[in-house]
């Protein structure tokens, strides 16, 4: 029974990693950039949801949508101010700029919300649901289903709308897309904003379970690991990599050691980088 419980918990944790990793892949493909501020935008999503839901008393779904939109909007601003203006220089400069943005956001979190963890109330209550002997927190169901929903919406957007198709074109081949008349610049900005909004959504979803702290952005390291497991450039890889990492992590902690949990995970990461740098699922 404990195996099934850990498996389920792993999927719920992994869904969060997938959501963050998915955003990282989109940015990587559209902008050739690793966004080190990504985790801190997860934190911003969590804190904004607390402001909307707790301070302003808005219902959870409204708070969720507002927080995600606000983070997306912030993404547009960051793209305009810090990425596009520096982009001409070298890639390293832009990457460094994202680290700087991350630090600014952390300081903002620390000053505005303080150093202590803050909890977003469980929108569906915190009584466990008993499903075939598994104890499931309503929030875990919400995490899994909202993640699934967001992924389906993203898929529909990419394949059914003109803008989505243009974005895919930019991610696949920027020059050709530009020759076909796609406005590459605005597609890049939009991709950045949507990616970051996904991270913000992850922050809101996880806030009732592991709370929000100014330094929670470190979760991005887990998403990078998921990304590397999944092969860096594939959407499917990021999703599967995230889920796999979540499940693996829960089993490791459950059956081997909690105190060394992260050490084991990062050892795995290094092994993958050495032996399968193209990721576990990529065939070449």
């Amino acid at each position, binding site marked *: *029974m*404990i195996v099934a*419980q*850990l498996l389920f*918990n792993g999927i719920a*944790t992994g869904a969060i990693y997938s959501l963050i990793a998915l955003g990282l892949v989109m940015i990587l493909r559209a902008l050739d950039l690793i966004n080190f501020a990504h985790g801190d935008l997860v934190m911003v999503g969590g804190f904004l949801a607390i402001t909307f839901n707790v301070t302003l008393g808005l219902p959870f779904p409204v708070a969720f949508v507002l927080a995600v939109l606000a983070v997306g909007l912030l993404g547009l601003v960051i793209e305009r101010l810090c990425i596009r203006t520096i982009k001409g220089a070298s890639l390293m400069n832009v990457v460094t700029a994202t680290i700087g943005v991350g630090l600014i956001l952390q300081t903002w979190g*620390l000053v505005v919300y*303080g*150093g*202590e*963890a803050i*909890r977003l109330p469980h929108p569906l209550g*915190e009584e*466990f649901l008993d499903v075939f002997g598994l*104890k499931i*927190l309503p929030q875990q169901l919400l995490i899994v289903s909202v993640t699934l929903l967001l992924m389906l919406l993203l898929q529909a957007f990419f394949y059914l709308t003109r803008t989505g198709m243009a974005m895919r074109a930019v991610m696949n081949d920027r020059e050709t897309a530009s020759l076909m008349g796609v406005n590459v610049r605005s597609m890049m900005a939009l991709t950045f904003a949507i990616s970051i909004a996904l991270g913000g959504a992850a922050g809101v979803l996880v806030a009732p*379970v*592991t*709370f929000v*702290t100014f*330094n929670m952005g470190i979760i991005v390291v887990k998403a990078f690991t998921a990304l590397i497991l999944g092969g860096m450039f594939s959407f499917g890889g990021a999703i599967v990599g995230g889920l796999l990492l979540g499940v693996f*992590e*829960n089993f490791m*902690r*459950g*059956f*081997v*050691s*909690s*105190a060394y*949990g992260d050490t084991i995970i990062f050892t795995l990461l290094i092994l993958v980088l050495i032996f399968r740098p193209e990721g576990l699922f990529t065939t070449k």
Partner: protein
Amino acid sequence: MTKRRGVWVLLAALAVGAGLGAAGGVGAEEIKIGVLAPLTGPASSWGEYTRDAAEMAVDEINAAGGVKGVGKMKLIYEDSEGNPKAGVTAATKLVNRHKVHVVLGEALSSVTLPTMAVTQRAEIPQLTAISGAPEVTGSGNKWIFRTQINQKYSGDLLADWAVNRLGFKKIAIMHANEPFGAGGAEGFRAGLAKRDVKPVAFERFNRDDKDFSGQLRRIKESGSKLLGFFGFHTEAAIAFKQAKQLGLDLTVLTNDALANPKFLELAGPDAEGVIISSMFIADDPDPLVQEFVKRFKARYNREPNQFHASVYDAVSILKEAFQRAGSTNNVKLREALLSIQDLRGVTGVHKFDENGDDRKPFLLETVKGGKYVFYAK
């Protein structure tokens, strides 16, 4: 020539100035209390408790004329960020730059421990109101005092309660892997050993961990129904929910790190029924306590918790000690602190032993309906 004369004039002026400063000291000296606390960072709730309680105490003392024969009290803050390295820098600043007469703090044992070396070297008394790790006292450092309960003693009380009053034989321990958590766990384990009980599970976790399924699975397999938990509120809140999810039905005994309102906020229903060793509870009918609660509420519009009470008492103790010392002299102040053997405060009757531990009696509280309530004495 003129340049040289200028230097002499300057030196003379400085000498006169220094002399005036010293001469003006009789009864009107400024007592500089260096407050070392986590004012920012993840432990900032303790910084806030320290500041609020210390300011209230000092305002009250100064409004009543300050310390008789010595002077008025002044608080000088340095931020430890709840981090040992920043804490040592802050302590050094208090001692060297601000020339404080006494250091009040730090809250976290992991920060108090390295900062004690700074005050010891400078031979300045340091009084912590919140650090409970056993190794803070008893190491031969003559300059450290505390109003917090040494976890050696709270661990013994909790063990007695677990074995003799609640009647548990299969007991598990889980603690944060740092001085405060380890100290609590060792104090509890020693208390159990004294009563011929060996814990059936002994688990550690790290600060900022978000998953405790491994430790909890082993505790479940050990068949234990009682958990001695020694760590902080954020990890406790997550761990207690996961314990329920993994099907554990545990009675939890813990020390005052969880007597922090932040714990109630984060853990919600999972805080119910946790039994906590503590120095103070706001619903204590003692008139001295009720008078304090009333004044605190009037000033801050909320109830004081035990950390507020402990810091408040620490400042009152300092007032008494400076008064007995009759000056700000470090050696006299230390002797005066040791001479305190029956001073009534809001956390009990203070009585320092030769290690600098306050041997006041303490109590147990529990969480009921989302509030801390009295449990037993």
